[in-house]
C-alpha cells in the first residue's frame, strides 16, 4: 500500500528530468552574467579586460576608489527617495484610475482609456524637450517632483490595475454600499486590502523602472547633488580611461536594491501580476 505511491512519485520525478535539465541550463544562463558582475567587482581593470573568471583581491580597493570618485551614498539615497516617491504616487493614482475604469465601466470610459493608451506609443526622446521646458517653467528641476511627475500616471499601470480589478468581487461593493460606505470608503477599505497582491506586483515594476531610469533623470537633474545611481554608473563609464573593477563595483551597488525588492515581494509579485485575489 505504501510502496505504490512512492514508486509513482519517483517515476513522476524521472519524467521531469528534461524539465530539470532545461531549468538548470536556463538558470545558469540567467545567473552567469550576474556572477561575472560580482567577480569583476573584485578584480582590477586589467584583469577585467582580459576576462578573468574567478574572484580577485581588488574588492576593497575598487570600493575605496568608488567612494573617492563618486558620491555613492548620496546617489543611493537619491535613487531610493525618487523610486519610493514615484512608486507610492504612481500606485495611488493608477490604482484609483484602474478601479474607476473597471468598476464603473461604461462606453465613454472605454473610449477615454483607449485614448490614454496612445501616450505610451511615442518614443520618449520626442517629448523630452517640451517636457523639460514644462518642468523647468514649473521650477521643478533637480527636485523629486521633476523626476516623478512625468511617470506617476502611466497607461501600463492603469491597464494592469484595470485588468486585475476584474477579479475584485462586485458583491463586496454591493454589500459595502448597503452598509452605507461611501465610494471613496470602498476604495480605501475594500479595494486596497483585497488588491494588495496587485499593489505588490505594481510596486515591484514601478520601483524597478524608477530606479533604473536614466535618460529623463539625466535631463532634469542638472546638479550632481541630485544624481541617481544609473547616472553615477554612466559617470564611471565615461572618460578617456575607465577603471572596470571600480565600474563593476558601482554596477553591483546599483543592482542590489532592485534584487532585494524583488526577493522581498516575489511571492506577492507572482500572485499579483495578473490579479489573483486571495
Amino acid at each position, binding site marked *: 500500500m505504501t510502496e505504490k505511491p512512492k514508486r509513482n512519485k519517483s517515476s513522476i520525478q524521472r519524467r521531469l528530468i528534461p524539465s530539470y535539465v532545461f531549468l538548470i541550463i536556463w538558470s545558469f544562463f540567467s545567473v552567469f552574467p550576474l556572477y561575472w558582475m560580482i567577480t569583476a567587482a573584485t578584480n582590477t581593470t586589467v584583469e*577585467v579586460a582580459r576576462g578573468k573568471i574567478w574572484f580577485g583581491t581588488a574588492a576593497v580597493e575598487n570600493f575605496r576608489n568608488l567612494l573617492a570618485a563618486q558620491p555613492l551614498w548620496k546617489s543611493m539615497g537619491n535613487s531610493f527617495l525618487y523610486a519610493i516617491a514615484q512608486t507610492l504616487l504612481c500606485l495611488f493614482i493608477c490604482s484609483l*484610475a484602474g478601479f474607476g475604469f473597471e468598476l464603473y465601466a461604461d462606453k465613454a470610459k472605454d473610449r477615454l482609456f483607449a485614448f490614454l493608451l496612445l501616450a505610451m506609443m511615442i518614443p520618449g*526622446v*520626442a517629448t523630452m524637450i517640451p517636457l523639460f521646458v514644462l518642468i523647468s517653467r514649473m521650477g521643478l528641476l533637480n527636485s523629486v517632483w521633476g523626476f516623478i511627475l*512625468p*511617470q506617476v500616471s502611466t497607461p501600463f499601470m492603469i491597464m494592469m490595475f484595470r485588468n486585475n480589478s476584474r477579479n475584485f468581487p462586485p458583491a463586496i461593493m454591493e454589500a459595502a454600499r448597503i452598509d452605507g460606505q461611501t465610494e471613496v470608503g470602498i476604495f480605501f477599505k475594500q479595494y486596497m486590502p483585497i488588491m494588495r497582491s496587485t499593489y505588490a506586483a505594481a510596486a515591484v515594476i514601478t520601483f524597478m523602472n524608477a530606479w533604473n531610469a536614466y535618460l529623463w533623470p539625466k535631463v532634469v537633474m542638472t546638479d550632481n547633488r541630485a544624481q541617481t545611481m544609473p547616472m553615477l554608473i554612466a559617470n564611471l563609464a565615461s572618460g578617456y580611461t575607465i577603471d572596470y573593477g571600480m565600474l563593476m563595483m558601482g554596477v553591483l551597488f546599483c543592482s542590489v536594491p532592485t534584487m532585494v525588492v524583488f526577493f522581498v515581494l516575489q511571492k506577492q509579485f507572482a500572485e499579483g501580476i*495578473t490579479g489573483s485575489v486571495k
Partner: protein
Amino acid sequence: MSYPRCMSFGGRESVKTSRNSVKAKQRRWGWAFLIPATVMIIVMSFYPMVQALITSFKKGPILNMQMADPWYNNYTRILQDKIFITAMKNTFLYLIIQVPIMLILAMLLAQILNNKDLKFKGIFRTMVFLPCATSLVSYALIFKSLFATQGLINSVLRSLHIISENINWLGTAGTAKFVIIFALIWRWTGYNMVFYLAGLQNIDYQVYEAAKIDGASAWKTFWRITVPLLKPVIVMTFIMSINGTLQLFDESVNLTNGGPANATITMSHYIYNMSFGQGVGKFGYASAMSFVVFIMVGVLAAINMKVGDTRD
C-alpha cells in the same frame, strides 16, 4: 481606435438600483476616480506630444524654428534617409526574431514551473527572474565585457576548441545583431515568464484533470485550454514587447553604439542621435521620425488586439 474587450475584459453592467440619484452619484464618483490619472497623462504626455507634433512640421535651430517648406518636408525626407531605413529594418528584424523566441521560451518556462510536482520551484523562479532586476545601463556593460574581443565568451570558446581565433562579436554586423538579440532574451524572458506563470496559476487545476480524463494530449490541452484562457495575458505581453522593441534604445546605444556601420542601430537610437549628442539637434526632423514610430506602434498594437480579440 476602438478598445477591444479582450484588454478590458469588458465593463460590468452597472448595478441596477431603484433610485436614480444614487446611481448618478456613483457614476460621478466613477469619473472622479479617473481625474488624477487623466490630468497627469494629458499634462505630462499629450501636451508634450502635441508640441512635438507641431515641431515635426518645422525646421531650423530650436530657438528660431520655421515652418518647413512644404510643411510635410520632414516626413518626405524620412523616405530618402538611408540610415532611418536601415534602422527600421534592424528594428523589425529584432521584432520578428527576438519577440517570438522570447515569448515561446517564457511560455515554456512558465509551463515547466507550473508543474505541481516540480521541486525547488521558488529557487528556479527567482533565478529565471533575476536578470530583470539589473538596470539597463548595468546589463549592457556586463554583456559588452562578456562579448569583448578578449572577453570571457571568446576565451571559453577557445579553450573548448570551438574557435581558433577570437571572434569580434560586436564588430561584425551579423554577430553584433545576434548579441543584441541574445541580451534582450536574457533580460526580458523572465519578466514575461512571470506574467504567464501568474496566468497559469489562476487556471483551476481541475480543468486539466478533466482534459486528461478525456484523453487529450498535452499539446492539445495547451492549445485548447491554456492558450484561450491565457489570451489576455498573451496579448498584453505581445503589445508590451512590440512597443518595447519598436522603441528599443538602451541596448543599441550601450552595447554596440549602433555599429558596426549602423548594422545594429534602432529607430529610437537614430532619433536620439538627431536630437542630442551630435552637436546641435535637428529637432523638427527627429520629431517627424518619432511620429512615424508612433504610427507603427499603433498599427501593430491594433492588429494585435484584433487578432487577440476572437471572443467566444
